[in-house]
C-alpha cells in the first residue's frame, strides 16, 4: 500500500511529457515497470540505439531502492559501459548505498542516461566474465565499491 500510492502518483506524473530520450515501455503493475532510454547526442557508442531498463519495486519502495537492470528484450541490447555488466547489472551508487527515497523512476532514468552520455570507453567492467558466471541477478546482494567517479 505504501509503495502503491507513491507509484500511482509517479505513474500519473510520467504520463505527462518525460524528458527527451526517456519513455515508458510498459507498466503492467506496481511491482515491475519497464522504461526505454536513449542517448541524445551523437556519442558513437550509443547512437541510434534504444535500451530497456527493468525496474522492480519491493513493498518498501521508495524507502528501499528499486532493483534496476538493463534487459535484452524486443531486440534491445545491454549498453557497453565500464560500470554495466553484460548481464545488465548496473553498478551505480544511487541504486545502492546512496539511494534516497526522494529519487524516483524518472530521476533514476535520467541518471543512467547521463551515465551513458558521458562515457567514452567501449568496455565492460573488470571481471565481467566471472561476475556474469557467478549468476548474481539481484544487485542488492552485491557490495559494489563505488570507487570510480570519472565515468
Amino acid at each position, binding site marked *: 500500500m505504501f509503495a502503491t*500510492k507513491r507509484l500511482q502518483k509517479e505513474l500519473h506524473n510520467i504520463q505527462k511529457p518525460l524528458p527527451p530520450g526517456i519513455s515508458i515501455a510498459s507498466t503492467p503493475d506496481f511491482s515491475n515497470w519497464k522504461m526505454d532510454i536513449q542517448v541524445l547526442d551523437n556519442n558513437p557508442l550509443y547512437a541510434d540505439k534504444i535500451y530497456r531498463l527493468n525496474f522492480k519495486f519491493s513493498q518498501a519502495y521508495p524507502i528501499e531502492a528499486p532493483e534496476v537492470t538493463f534487459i535484452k528484450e524486443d531486440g534491445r541490447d545491454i549498453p557497453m559501459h565500464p560500470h554495466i555488466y553484460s548481464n545488465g547489472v548496473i553498478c551505480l551508487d544511487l541504486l545502492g548505498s546512496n539511494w534516497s*527515497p*526522494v529519487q524516483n523512476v524518472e530521476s533514476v532514468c535520467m541518471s543512467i542516461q547521463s551515465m551513458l552520455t558521458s562515457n567514452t570507453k567501449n568496455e565492460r567492467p573488470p571481471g565481467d566474465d566471472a561476475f556474469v558466471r557467478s549468476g548474481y541477478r539481484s544487485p542488492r546482494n552485491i557490495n559494489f565499491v563505488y570507487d570510480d567517479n570519472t565515468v
Partner: protein
Amino acid sequence: MSEMSDDDFLSGGSEEDFNDESMDSDFEEEDGTQYLDDKDDRPQKKAYEVDYSVLSEEQIEKAQSDMIDEVHIILDLTPENAAMLLRHFKWNKERLIEQYMDSSQRVLEYAGIDLSGSNKLEVKKVPGFMCDICCEDDDDLETIALRCNHRYCTNCYQQYLFYKIREEGEAIMIQCLNHKCKVLVDPSTIERLCTPEILHRYHELLNRTYVQDKQNLRWCPAPNCENVIDCGVTPNQLQEIVPTVMCSCGHHFCFGCGSNDHQPCPCGLVRKWLKKCEDDSETANWISANTKECPKCQSTIEKNGGCNHMTCRKCKHEFCWVCMGPWNEHGTSWYNCNRYEEKSGVDARDIQAKSRASLERYLHYYNRYANHEQSGKLDKDLYIKTEKKMTMLQSASGMSWIEVQYLDAASKVLQQCRQTLKWTYAFAFYLQRNHLTTIFEDNQKDLEMAVEGLSELFEKPTDQLANIKVEMMDKTAYVSNRRVILLDTTAKGLQDGTWEFTVEF
C-alpha cells in the same frame, strides 16, 4: 556475535580481525605492565591467567551513560548531543574533548550536530503540503522536518526508521531522507517516532556499536548469551599472552580472537594451524611425498608395487623409478639400479625425502590434535553419560548425589585437559627443536599420561566405581595440577619471549 549459530560456536571457527586499528596505542605499554603487576589482590594468580570482568547488558548501558554524563558536563552540551559526539568518536573521550576544545564548530559539523536549538522536533500540519515520498497531500497530514528543513510526512519517517533499524541494522548513522543530506536523525526523534519493538532493537544496536568500538570489550560468543567481557589485553599483546576468559554463562573462550579456549597456543599460531589443516597444502605434500612425475610427460605416478622398470601409461616412456633416468641407459643390470650417484637422481630423492619428512612431522602433530578434538566433540555425550553413571552409581552403592559428584568433577577435568592437550600439539608443531621444547614435550607427555590414566578409571564399570572413589579424586587433582603446570610454564615462556618458533606470527 551473539547471533552466531550453534555450529559456528561449536566448531570454534573465527574470522575475527585482530588488526583493528588500535585507538589508544599510546597507552598500551602502560596497560600491559599494569596488568602484569596487578596481582596483589590475587597472590595465587598464574602466568596464564588474565584479569577480566563479566559485564551484563545493564552494566554496559550504565558505562555509556556515565561517560555521557561526564562529557556533557565537561563540554557543556546536552546529554543527547554528548552521546552523539561520543558515538561519532567511537567512545574515545580524550580525543573528543581535545578536538572539541580545539574547534567545537568543526567537530559538531563533522558529526552532523546542530546546537542552535532549531532541531527541536515539531510535528506540524502544513496546508497544501505534499510528501515527496508517499505523495500524500491530505490537509491534516502530520509532517516532520529536521533542522535542514527537508519536510516529509510522519508516516514516511516511521517507515524509513523502521527500514534502517530493522533491515539495515543501522543506529548511529541514520541521515535525513533527502538525497545527499548529511544531517543525522537525532536519538530523541527516533525515540519519539518508533514503536517500542523497534526502539528495543535500536538500543541493542547502540550497545553493540559501543562494544565494537571499545577495544577492551567483547561479546561472549556463546549462543543466547548477552554478556560482555571487559579485559585489558590489547591485540599487540597477543604474542605474549593467551587471554582466556570464562563468561558467567560458563563458556570458556579466548578474549583475543573469540574462538574456544585454545591455551597454551597463541592466537596467531592458532590461525596458522587451522589454515594449514583446512587448506589442501597437506594433500599436495602427500602427493609430492608419495608420487613422482614421469620425466617425459610429467604425469603423476604412484608406484604401488612391482619392479623399478616403469613404463608410463600415458606416453610409454620407460624409466627407472629409483634414479628417474631413462631405462635404456641401465644396460643389463635390470632390477638393480647402479646409477645411484647421478646428480639429478640425488636431487630428486632429496626433495622427496624432505617433503616426506615434513609430512610425517605434520601428521604426527595433526593426529594427536585431531584425536583430542574428536574427544572434545563428544562433549555433549559425555555429559549425559556422566549423569547416567552418577545415577547408576547412586542406586548401586547407596551413595548420595553429593557423594557421587567426584565423577562429574573428573569428567569436567578430563574435558578441560583434552582441550588443552589438543592445542599443545599445534603449539609444539611450530616450536624449534631445543631443550625448552624437550621440557615442554615432557610436560605434555606427563599430562597426556595422567589424562589417559584418569580416563581409564572413568570408563570402569559402575560396580567398581565406588571402590576407586579416593583413587579417582586423587588422580583428578593430579591431572588438573599437571595442566596448571604446563600452562603456567608455557605462559611464562611467552611473556619472557623464550620460546623459539619456526614461523612468525
